[in-house]
Every structure is written in structure tokens, then in C-alpha cells.
């Protein structure tokens, strides 16, 4: 697992608590308790703080899983491989 993924997992744990690696990599709004629209904004702000980047808020409704967030970051910032 690369460093960027680990940092992203840390962001998820900061917002959603201590989930296992496997649970995190498969995390989505339907599998993680407490992942609602407010938590999505908090998650985005935590990632922005950690990676020093800005999200397009119009994209937030589509960021419904760990995988979707990782792909968004890869496409829009290049920070996450």
C-alpha cells in the first residue's frame, strides 16, 4: 500500500473512526455508519487539510466511496496514485 493511500485512510479514520484496512478500502456511504452528507463535507475538508488541495464541491455528491474519493484525487490533483 502506497503512502498516499495510507494518508487517505488516515483521513477516513479521522472522520469515521477506527475501521480496519479492509473495511476502509471497501468503505462507502452504504457500509459506513455515520457517512451522511455532513460527514462527506467534513471528510472533504480533512482531505483538503491533509493534502493541501481544493475539492470541487459539485463533485461531492459523487464521492460516495473510498474508491471514488481516491479516483477523484488522482484525476484532479495527481496527489494520489
Amino acid at each position, binding site marked *: 500500500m502506497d503512502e498516499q493511500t495510507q494518508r487517505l485512510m488516515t483521513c477516513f479514520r479521522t472522520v469515521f473512526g477506527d475501521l480496519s484496512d479492509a473495511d476502509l478500502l471497501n468503505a462507502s456511504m452504504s457500509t459506513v455508519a455515520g457517512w451522511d452528507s455532513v460527514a462527506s*463535507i467534513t471528510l472533504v475538508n480533512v482531505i483538503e487539510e491533509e493534502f493541501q488541495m481544493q475539492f470541487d464541491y459539485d463533485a461531492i455528491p459523487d464521492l460516495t466511496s473510498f474508491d471514488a474519493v481516491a479516483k477523484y484525487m488522482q484525476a484532479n490533483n495527481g496527489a494520489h496514485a
Partner: protein
Amino acid sequence: MKLTEALRIRQGAAGVPNSFKVALACGFTPLHLETFLAAHLQQALPGRRVEVATGLYGDLAGTLERFAEIEADAFAVALEWPDLDPRLGYRNLGGWGPSEEIDMVKHAQATLARMRAAIERAPASVPMAISLPTLPLPPAFHTPGWQASAAALDIQQSLACFAAETARRPIHRVLNAQYLTGRSAPGGALDLKTEILTGFPYTLAHADAVGEALARLIQPPPVKKGLITDLDDTLWNGLVGEEGPDGVNWDLSNHGGLHGLYQQLLGGLAAQGTLLAIASKNDPAVVDRALSRTDLLVRRDSVFPVEVGWHAKSESVGRILKTWNIAADSIVFVDDSPMELAEVKAAWPEIECRLFPKKDYDAAHALFQELRDLFGKSSVGAEDALRLASIRRAAELAQDAVVSGATPDEFLAQAGSVMLVEFNPPPEDTRVLELVNKTNQFNLNGQRHTESEWRRELETPGAFVMAVSYEDKFGPLGKIAVLKGVARNGDVDINAWVMSCRAFSRRIEHRCMEILFERFGAEQLRFAFAATPKNSPTAEMLERFLGARPQGEVSLSRARFAECVPALYHKVEYRNG
């Protein structure tokens, strides 16, 4: 604080059993303000799990009205312009411009009146922290940005009246806008993107600053009790030993203005109950003449003791602490010499040592602000005015006893002491809980209480509070002891007991126990004692009755008390039966 850190602080407290409930009223999405407020409060209350409940979006006045029915340890209010009139925000398209201005003023005034009424109806004993609008007004008025509009000024005037009326009650604490400006510049406060897209108007940095300030209002840091100051180039400009008592100065014409301001600040602190003392390396006779000058801005009799000599400053500080009978961590020491500060700090590491920057005006300004923060209080009561006088009298009393050669019993018998006992004082008497929460040495268990906790505990059947004021022929000490307990079935359980260190050596604690035995017909008193780093005087007092050092909860029978109690000479009066 970063958002990540705030979230981790909250996660870290998840397992703490005792909660501290805060009701937060804000008209916007609380989002990160809630997180930062909780995190900062969590840091101030490490033994509690801070929980923040929020009201409805866009209905701050309604949330305030519901405070009357909410069970909370504290209330927090984050007011912004749209709460006064939705047209003063960015998420409402009700119209801007001249035709709206008069109506906006009227609506804002009506809303403020509604909020005032709601605040007045909130539980009187629960602290409320209130942040007035922190964001810039939108471009809703007809004037250009550099010119204030009359309508905007009308709204700000109404808001200022609302704040002034609210702040009259010390339990309602209004955030000082200057404090916030120093931590979050107005230009960096608004995040229009998140306001429009999510309903949260603050940048993260601003949310952190507002959350920190509200938390500080709810749970203020401990107030320092005493300030020890140097004289030469600190209290005054110049060396009194060289220039003479009339040669030192503190006026603008002699470039001593900073010293004059410092004296003025100390005078203000003394008037609100801060203890002042002097530690100076000088000739005592010369200093005495200088301190007798009538143009000093801090009154000579508001400084006690005055330790002047050629010994180490740390020795002077030690004697002052002994006279004051307060802990070193409640003290600030100010001197213009880094070496003296280091010497005192080495001997008394708990003391806050501050350099007096005699030529650095910016640093002096920062020092004055810091001293005001360290000693500032929400309210000033009658006991604050008595504090120094009673310490001075206690020292004189001890000296009298030595000089006269009287035994303690002879001395106390002639003291003419009167204890005024009040059972279940009204909740508005803030001195009761203040004494409980700031007393360290004579404190049964060191437990601190929030207002709402205290109130809830008093709802227990049989619960009582006993507050004791004291005076003798040497003068009044004010309210100096508080006991809280539960009386049932012939037993009394005492779960809080504090007594001011100014009241030691007068056998007041013994009389308090006697009063409890008599009033409740108790056969035994049970004490919820717990040792703390500072409450050895309490342990020693109990040890004298029990014959062994208490390790936890202990009981004292009526018979054992009668066997051990020394002669008591106080006259006891009751205020409310």
C-alpha cells in the same frame, strides 16, 4: 487547531463516562463550529465527554427559546447577521438596497428583542457564551464600502444594546470582538463557497477561533490570584536607591509612561481583589518613603506584604506566598531583570514569571493585555474587596498573638468572632460555587462542579448547602466556607467542603461540624474525602479527629467529635433558619 486534530480530540474522549452537555444555537449549519467548540471544551474539561446538541437551521431565535426546556451544562450562541434578518446573508434573495433598509432595521430590532426575552428565560444557573456577528455585513446597503450606512449603524446600535443588556448578568458571557479579531482577521472569516454550497459560513481558521473563544467563555482558565512586582525600572522608572524617593517617576514627561500605565493596571487589579506584593532588593527605609508618595497610582495600602532587603528574590517570594497562603501556581512575578526572573523561576517553577519591558512599547502593551487576561474575572463581588484586608489582618493577628503571649484559646476567646450560617443560599449567589471551584487547600476532595451539576445534585432528597460568612473584631472575611451534603436517617453525607485559606486557625471547621450534628440530629458525619496534591490541611484536620490519616471516605461519630473538639468561641447567627 486543525480540523483533523479537533476530530481526533473528540474521538479520543468517546469512552469518557461523564458527559458535559452543551446546547449550541446558531442559525447556520453548525458543521465545523460544533467540532471545534467541542474539541476546545474537551481540552479544558479532560475528565468529561463533551457533547454538543444543535438546533434547527435558520431558526436561532427559536433555538434560544427552547433553551428554557433543555437540560444542559452550558449554552453557546453563535449569532450572525442573517439571524437578525435573512436579507443580511448570502443564502436568501429577499432583496438588497434602499427600499429594504428600513424594514431590515425594524426586523432586526424585533428579532433582537425576541432573543433577549429568550435569553432571560433560559435557566439562570447555566452559563451562556454568546458570540455576536463576526462576519462582515453583506453589500446590502446603498452606501459604498468605505461609508457606513445609517441603516447598518442602526442595526449595529441595536445589537450593541442587546449585548450590553445581556452581559449585565455574569452568567451570560459575551465574546469580546477584539479578542476574536486578534485570532481571526475579519477579512479571512467568511467562506462564501461553503456558505452558499453547504450553509456553513466560516473558514476553518475562523471556526476554530470562534469555537475556542466560546469554549473559553464557557470554561474560563483559572484566574491568577496574586502578582508580585519588582520596584526599580518596573513599578517606577529609575533606581530609588540612587535617585531617591522623589527621583523615581512614572509620568510621560520623564519617559516613565509605561510604568505609570503599569501602576494604573495594578491599581485596577487590586480593586477587583487581586493580591499585590513587592519583592525588591533595596533599602527598606528608602522604599518606604517612595511608597508613601501620594502620586502613586497604586494605593500603598493595596500592596501587602512589601518584601524589601538584600536577600534573594526567591526568598522574598517564599515569604509572600506564606503570608498569602496561596499556591505558587496562582502567582505572577514581574521584574525587569531576566536574571531575577530566572532565579525566582528556578526556586518556584510553578510561578508565571514575566519580564517588564521598560523600553519596548509593543512588548509592554502585550504584557498589560496578558496580565488583564490572567487576572480578569467575569464579575467582582464583595469578597474580592475584603481579600487583601483580611490577609493583612491575619498577619497582624498572628503578630499580636506572638507579642501578647496569649494562648490560642485566650486569643480566640477575645476575638469576638461571629459566624453567619446560611442554609441553601439562592442560586444567584455565585460566590458559593466560585469558592468550591477555586479552593485547593481546605477542600474535601478537590472535585470541581459546573453550575448545572451543582443544581442537579441539590435536587437529591435531603440535599443541602451550608454557606458560612465570618467576621471578628479584626474585620469581616466575607463568605469563606461552603459545605454540601445529603442528610437522611440520622446521617449526614458531606460530598463537598471547602474553606478559604484566609479563615484557617479560627476553628471554623470545627464549628461547622458541630452545626451539622445539631441541625440534623446526626449520629455521624460521613466525608467523601479524596486526597489531592494540595488538600493536606483537610486531611490533617480529619486526622486529628479520626486518629489516622484518611485515605478515602471516612465517618466521624458524634461521640468522637465531642471527645476531640477544642473549645469554640464563635457566636453563630443564621440567615435563613
